[in-house]
């Protein structure tokens, strides 16, 4: 629209006189490239997933805060909280979001970036809540999305769970926290340690004490860590029991094809720490096989230079729980697949009864037990019901959502768990086109499937002897078996 306003002058429209025959010439041009798409693109631009809607023009003059406002929206489309860091943006802007929400078949499929005439809406969906940020100028979307995830993490940290009810119950604290996290749209304090010093998390005890003494849950001192060289740690930490625990947790993402061979497999690993140490401890953590870790992301406390040169993690830890590093192992030969699924699923063409049989067994488990096994599979729409018998565990088939889930429990290598039975199809429908994919969940304690092992943990800078512990665990991430 603005382009029109910038036209050179009102008289311009009549400038170029259309010569006789011009229209004809154009038509001839068109006729020559008479293929269905002319010389157009193959396959169409649609693959790029571009939104159909036009572009929202972020107005350069008004370019301002990175994150303008935040709306929290529940699954049924109610805005139950709004926070504005600059001027108030009318909640009608969310109508564009609701439109997108309606179009998407499931909540997970709502696109994370939605353009509107004057704003952009960036959203994340977690804990059945949409966190919708409104931005007006060109900002890095990852910046906003990362921040939104950080908001969710903070809520979870403060209240234990993050849900609509708990947010409503603590709306004032939520509001205060949001105000501390952003100033003018710029992140201000996002470290949970610092936030908790500024705004104390609600506890039953504190509520009672506050009511009696009239004190508040807002800290009135500048958090000490915020500007020091180690902003993630406050000074003057004191514990009677000094302990440092590290959990090495690995998740396997894999796609296994019909015949049981691996299509892709990768490991997402993290080392989560719970460190409760007095004073300013300086820790080093070394691995037996650090070469496994070639793709790592560190907590800011880790000294990167030291890692580069010696492959040793050296850091002053934050106080309490934090994620020390996350890593990614994708080299195929390094990823062991700890379980296999034998399946025999057939929807017979002629009769309305099909056969269904799956067996789960251990594969490369390094002698450890596979437990917490859970099998889920989305059946085709034409499946009416399933009559199945498990050799162990319990199973449920939901005839409405067509979701089959089987809680297997532990795998005993001597007696492999199996689930057998028949499938009844809707009469008169043809054989389903799609084959169900089997989704697997499991846990293996005391094993990091990549083979990563911590060598030793040392502490410098403090005199006392801490208690140290390392735990390993392997879990299924997105582990899928095609049938």
């Amino acid at each position: 629209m603005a382009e029109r306003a910038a036209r050179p002058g009102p008289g311009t429209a009549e400038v170029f006189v259309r010569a006789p025959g011009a229209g004809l010439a154009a038509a001839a041009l068109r006729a020559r490239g008479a293929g269905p798409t002319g010389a157009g693109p193959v396959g169409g631009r649609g693959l790029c997933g571009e939104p159909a809607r036009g572009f929202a023009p972020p107005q350069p003059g008004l370019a301002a805060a990175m994150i303008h406002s935040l709306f929290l929206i529940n699954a049924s489309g109610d805005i139950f909280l709004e926070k504005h860091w600059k001027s108030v943006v009318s909640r009608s802007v969310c109508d564009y979001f609701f439109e997108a929400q309606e179009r998407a078949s499931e909540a997970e499929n709502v696109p994370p970036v939605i353009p509107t005439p004057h704003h952009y809406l960036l959203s994340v969906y977690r804990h059945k809540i949409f966190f919708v940020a409104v931005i007006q100028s060109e900002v890095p979307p990852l910046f906003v999305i990362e921040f939104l995830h950080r908001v969710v993490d903070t809520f979870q940290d403060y209240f234990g769970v993050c849900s609509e009810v708990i947010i409503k119950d603590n709306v004032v604290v939520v509001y205060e926290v949001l105000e501390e996290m952003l100033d003018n749209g710029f992140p201000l304090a996002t470290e949970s340690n610092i936030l908790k010093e500024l705004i104390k998390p609600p506890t039953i005890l504190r509520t009672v004490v506050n009511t009696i003494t009239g004190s508040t849950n807002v800290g009135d001192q500048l958090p000490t860590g915020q500007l020091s060289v180690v902003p993630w740690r406050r000074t003057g930490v004191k514990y009677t029991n000094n302990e440092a625990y590290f959990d090495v947790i690995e998740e396997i993402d894999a796609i296994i094809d019909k015949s049981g061979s691996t299509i892709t497999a990768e490991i997402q690993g993290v080392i989560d720490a719970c460190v409760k140490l007095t004073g300013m401890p300086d820790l080093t953590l070394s691995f037996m096989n650090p070469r496994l870790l070639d793709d790592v992301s560190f907590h800011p406390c880790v000294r990167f230079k030291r890692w580069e040169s010696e492959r040793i993690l050296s850091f002053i830890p934050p106080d309490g729980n934090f994620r020390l590093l996350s890593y990614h192992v994708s080299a195929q030969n390094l990823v062991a697949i700890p379980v296999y699924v034998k399946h025999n699923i057939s929807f017979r063409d002629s009769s309305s009864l099909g056969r269904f049989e799956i067996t789960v067994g251990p594969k490369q488990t390094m002698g450890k037990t596979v437990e917490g096994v859970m099998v889920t599979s989305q059946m085709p729409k034409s499946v009416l019901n399933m009559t199945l018998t498990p050799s162990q565990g319990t199973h449920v088939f939901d005839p409405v959502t067509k979701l089959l889930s089987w809680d297997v429990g532990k795998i005993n290598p001597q007696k492999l768990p199996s689930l057998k039975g028949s499938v009844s199809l809707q009469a008169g429908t043809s054989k389903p086109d799609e084959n169900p994919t089997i989704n697997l969940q499991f846990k293996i304690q005391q094993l990091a499937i990549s083979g990563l092992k911590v060598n030793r943990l040392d502490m410098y800078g403090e005199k006392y002897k801490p208690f140290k512990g390392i735990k390993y665990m392997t879990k299924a991430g997105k582990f899928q078996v095609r049938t």
Partner: protein
Amino acid sequence: MTDSKYFTTTKKGEIFELKAELNSDKKEKKKEAVKKVIASMTVGKDVSALFPDVVNCMQTDNLELKKLVYLYLMNYAKSQPDMAIMAVNTFVKDCEDPNPLIRALAVRTMGCIRVDKITEYLCEPLRKCLKDEDPYVRKTAAVCVAKLHDINAQLVEDQGFLDTLKDLISDSNPMVVANAVAALSEIAESHPSSNLLDLNPQSINKLLTALNECTEWGQIFILDCLANYMPKDDREAQSICERVTPRLSHANSAVVLSAVKVLMKFMEMLSKDLDYYGTLLKKLAPPLVTLLSAEPELQYVALRNINLIVQKRPEILKHEMKVFFVKYNDPIYVKLEKLDIMIRLASQANIAQVLAELKEYATEVDVDFVRKAVRAIGRCAIKVEQSAERCVSTLLDLIQTKVNYVVQEAIVVIKDIFRKYPNKYESVIATLCENLDSLDEPEARAAMIWIVGEYAERIDNADELLESFLEGFHDESTQVQLQLLTAIVKLFLKKPTETQELVQQVLSLATQDSDNPDLRDRGYIYWRLLSTDPVAAKEVVLAEKPLISEETDLIEPTLLDELICYIGTLASVYHKPPSAFVEGSRGVVHKSLPPRTGSSESAESPDTAPSGGPAADQPSVIPTQGDLLGDLLNLDLGPPVSGPPMATSAVQMGAVDLLGDSLMGGSGGSFTPAPSTTAPTNVGAPLGSGLGDLFDLTGGVGTLSGSYVAPKTVWLPAMKAKGLEISGTFSRQVGSISMDLVLTNKALQVMSDFAIQFNRNSFGLAPAAPLQVHAPLAPNQSVEITLPLNTVGSVMKMEPLNNLQVAVKNNIDVFYFSTLYPLHILFVEDGKMERQMFLATWKDIPNENETQFQIKDCSLNADAVSSKLQGSNIFTIAKRNVEGQDMLYQSLKLTNGIWVLAELRIQPSNPSFTVHPTPACSHPPGAGGHVPAVGPPQLLVVLVPAPLSLSRGEGGTAPVGTAEAHRGVPTVKRCPRGIP
């Protein structure tokens, strides 16, 4: 007891109740009441009526209460500005508080209150806080400057806050540095021309140091700022890369992506032979892969960016195909992006794997995804030639499934495969024809009809098949109708004997019964072609079609390069440059990748100047393509009509038009002061800058005989013209004007059939000959053309005066751009006025038509100036020396007969010239009347219409030095006039 109780107040008299509680004596009750107010605010209820009561609670020692009141204030101050002023005192007091937390809180909140009256009071406390001893306060104050700038930019500049902010970049605390960078970036965004973030090796070094120490968010600001820097050579680029690389291991994905942007950009400068280049390539892959294990929303943004990176540097991820395989529970938006990248990475080495995956996807539940998967198979066939056969057989397998939408998609892509590999896979046509009846989507029907028409000679019953479609002709969509029309005409040309009836039927359906002009036009053309010259019809309709290639899906290289500079931004998500969605072209700085070279020379050349620097002034003046589009839609691209009949009147009109609004007809003989003040400035600007060009005598001496020629500038960037780049300049040589053009083909296909056309303009400039490009322009080829111009075109006053709108056509499309031509190309050779006439004219020029400005840094003496100006047809009429200053009196005449007189004062000790151009107007007897002069506020312009009988001077051809323009500084002082 939870906060939900705050929502459970009784509906009736809610506000009244709260009011009472807010005014309670009990502290605790007050606080509870404020909490209730805040709770109502969070759900969007209007509680602004409580403003005075809440503000009364502000003066308290209780920090929580204070914060709550501040929260309220920020929300409602704007709606109650008069009330908000009540809070100012408390703010100012809090800014002096010994507790830094309170000082910071106060300055931060004040910045959020967007009320003019309050911002006035903010300046002093803010100044103190920017220099506060506590870094926490300083960092908060830095952001506050950005807030204030958003409310009142002038105030921030006047108060010198910008300089203080720049100083903060050197602060000892990394957090303060990061916030200062963030604030400066934000301010710079709204003032793209201001050189706020003056990046030089020293400041870059400071930023790199702060990068290691500040928070993750600060790192993003700093990295984005670094990306705008242009290293002076490859060594500097490498050293920055080395210091940025550790950021790739950051846990925050936004930091990672910003680091990737810096590396992708600076890599451009590194030589590919360098070991470091290879190392860097290897280091880029793992972090990109890791981004894909993050939350789906992050994955989506990452994938959109990876899509760009893969196109720019496929080598980075060529071994990582598998991470893009789709998991069945990925959100649909992630699935589609992964699919797209899979095709981009597909190569002979991995095609088997990719095809197996795609076939798997084609049996999924989600219809949209299945369709895209089928299309992807077709794209693979077109991209990897060796796999075409396998792809076709996969598609045939899918057709056998008889799943309706799969079949339809498959037919659409098979049509594309036919167009890529003609006469290779026609054996499958039989199978396709079997599915004719199940096609219900227009695209699939159109594709099928195209196939039948294209291969009509091989399909025995082609006429029957097409006839069956014809029955419901009017119910079909336009796409199908057009296709059917073309297909039947093709059929007729191939088998004329059996299909005469059919073709007549379709032609009459298309031309007589249809309301669609496209269809009707096409129908008429075919009809006429067939009836007049069947041979020609055959040549047109059955012409060989260009092969399609995978490249049609790629982003144009120039656009891709620009987008690489925007990695991590919204532009990268939408694959469009910000200029495409920022209104108007003002305010957008084009970013470009640095050239691959180590020499510092090229990095400093204006074309590759750092993107943060001021863009050339043209883009801000010239309307964008879009503006012109509407106006020029009716453009005829035939050779220009240069008929003499209109010429005379056009010139007359030109003089009149030039005067714009202040036109006073041809009636009286008296001067009329210009009533308009807006139009004249526009006359002045081009004239002034043009003179600046001519006077710039410091540059090298031109070798051409003729007037000053400006260096070529890019008029039409390739991005806006589907790969055609046009740069050029204007020149005047021995009485003829020409436009020197360089056309460069930056697209992937050959360009031909060039034509050019001008819009009406102030001086009637028009091409004197058609645009001659002899051979088609191959990709990456350039051609230089000199287009002769004349001034007999039709005339219309443009804004600015020397604006020229141009349309260029080639075989691809028609493109529009506009440019400013230097006025001196219009100075004619007989522009020397007779002395007496000059004197008489000069005296008659009214004062308000006079202006004056200075040309600086010009170290030539009067004679040299005089001879140089003569080269550009500005003639010296007289010269005198007054008090040691040389005075030159000059005249020039424009092509439309308007005279301009000027006085030039040269102070020997001072290299600045004062020009006093007084475009002249005389009233010689017999003239049709005086055209009144437009009096710009500063430039004195007196205009004389053409039909004057003035004496002619000799045309000179001395060379004139060229260099960039120094615009004279206008002064208000008037200098004495008159000739000795």
